């Protein structure tokens, strides 16, 4: 442990391990490399596959922010992914909304639902919090099953038009749509970065570390947790609505508990609290689902096995392991 010797006068040179400028420089490099990789990717892989990865990576990002920086474990994040998927699909298909508006509307709906679910669940701690989020998400699932006139029931909302972005760019072209989805993902990444490195983010980290202490310093911690939950839900909604436009489909799977489980899997396999974790996790899980699809029930078994290996052997997930090798935060 090397510790710089300090005195009151050198405060300008003070370099915190969590200092904004240092972290920003480090993350900027990672971000640029990632943007470059995303730019090249459609030339070597199927755009539709990549878009699926990016939607789930965005979903993972929202979960990662909530657990990694707020210490809040949600088992019901499918509610926000799914609601936005339905709202976005419905608005684009029956409301004739442009894709960008449908996506924004979806994300906003999830933010509102998130603030309600968050306010209810936040009254309990730890595993009880997680169980309440699960229960509330199941409630939404049953409502979705019971209202086929809105959700299309078992069939879902199919044939959602991709439309034209800002009335100009035709998203029927997979490459074009891919560029938009990649842009949304990168924007989501910057959004999370801004939140966790804001004055608000600092308080969230303090609450995660020691909530009674934060209260004793005069912070009304519940409000901070609800706001973080709402922001996370909005991001999950962004992912869900984008997914609905990409696959032209919103279905019960989007609100199903297995989708909540998937986002836990993606985050932990990729690496909790890391910037690249969700995208690596999404890449692994989505690839696996696509390649193992023929094996039916075995997909779940293999997923479970990978999950157990990652959680018990790699505490920081895949990205955590790479971080250890390379000695830099990713």
């Amino acid at each position, binding site marked *: *442990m090397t*510790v*710089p*010797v*300090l*005195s*009151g006068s050198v*405060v300008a040179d*003070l*370099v*915190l*391990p*969590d200092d*904004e400028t240092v972290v920003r420089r480090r993350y900027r490099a990672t971000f640029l490399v990632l943007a470059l990789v995303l730019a090249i990717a459609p030339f070597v892989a199927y755009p539709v596959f990549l878009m699926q990865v990016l939607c789930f990576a965005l979903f993972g990002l929202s979960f990662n922010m909530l657990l990694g920086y707020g210490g809040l474990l949600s088992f019901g994040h499918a509610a926000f992914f799914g609601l936005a998927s339905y709202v976005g699909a419905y608005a684009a298909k029956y409301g004739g909304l442009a894709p960008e508006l449908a996506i924004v509307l979806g994300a906003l709906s999830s933010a509102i639902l998130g603030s309600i679910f968050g306010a209810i669940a936040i009254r309990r701690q730890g595993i009880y919090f997680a169980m309440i989020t699960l229960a509330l998400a199941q409630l939404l699932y049953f409502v979705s099953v019971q209202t086929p006139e809105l959700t299309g029931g078992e069939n879902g909302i199919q044939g959602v038009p991709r439309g034209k972005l800002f009335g100009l760019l035709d998203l029927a072209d997979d490459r074009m749509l891919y560029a938009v989805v990649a842009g949304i993902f990168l924007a989501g990444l910057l959004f999370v970065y*801004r*939140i966790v*490195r*804001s*004055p*608000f*983010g*600092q*308080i969230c*980290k*303090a609450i*995660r*570390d*020691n909530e*009674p*202490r*934060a*209260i*004793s*310093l*005069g*912070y*009304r*911690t519940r*409000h*901070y947790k609800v*706001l973080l939950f709402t*922001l996370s839900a909005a991001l999950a909604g962004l992912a869900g609505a984008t997914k609905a436009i990409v696959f032209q489909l919103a279905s019960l799977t989007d609100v199903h508990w297995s989708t909540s489980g998937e986002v836990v899997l993606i985050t932990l396999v990729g690496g909790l609290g890391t910037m690249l974790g969700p995208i690596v996790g999404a890449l692994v899980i989505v690839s696996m689902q696509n390649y193992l699809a023929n094996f039916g029930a075995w997909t779940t078994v293999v997923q479970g096995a990978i999950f157990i290996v990652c959680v018990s052997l790699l505490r920081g997930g895949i990205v955590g392991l790479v971080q250890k090798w390379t000695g830099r935060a990713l």
Partner: protein
Amino acid sequence: MTDPDDLILVTRGLTKEFGGLAAVSDVDLRIRRGSIHAMIGPNGAGKTTCFNLLTKFLPPSRGSIVFDGKDITHDRPDEIARRGLVRSFQISAVFPELSALTNVRIALQRKRGGSFDFWRSEEQLRPLNEAALQLLEAVGLAHVATVAAGELAYGQKRALELATTLALDPKMLLLDEPMAGIGREDFRRIEALIRTAAANRTVLMVEHNLSIVASLSDRITVLARGRVLADGDYGTVAKDPAVIEAYIGSGRHG
């Protein structure tokens, strides 16, 4: 030195029952503004519970609390902290994954009002670094300002907790065993620090080390089995037969 009639904290009949068992019963505290008031008593006497009641970390079963002329019996814990009654914890309480400097800054940040600005950069907080570092320097932690609080030695964590509490510039400090786990070498420093901190505020302190209590405090309240056994200055309290009985009876000696 202190006006005996100027009371900053008054409780009446403060009681806390856990399933019928009274951990604190009928406690009347009268704490003078500007004094260092010690609360002593054997293990399990109800001292920490008392702190939890005063800061509303636990709701009282009965009784009232008046702080600085206002009834705070029904306030939330965060409201009480904002009124200027701030506690430390018996087991050191820091934010382990944040640097020592950030720990103090979390307290300084509160003066900005609510920190709900998730769209702003952390750069906003940079002006607070100077004050945070000064507070760290006062407790002898400037050289570990950048170290994660979780990696500090126990005594350093206690000092950091004190610096964080002082960053709020509270009217009144509640210190729960500030000397516990502090090495001999840091003893004098923390003692001096408490003395400095108490210069322009009130301190209520739970402490088992009776020599510290004797040298620091103006007044002492002795608690046993949840009840106030004696109240007065050190000389009076130490001679009280009930106090001697309670301490010997519980097998604990000063």
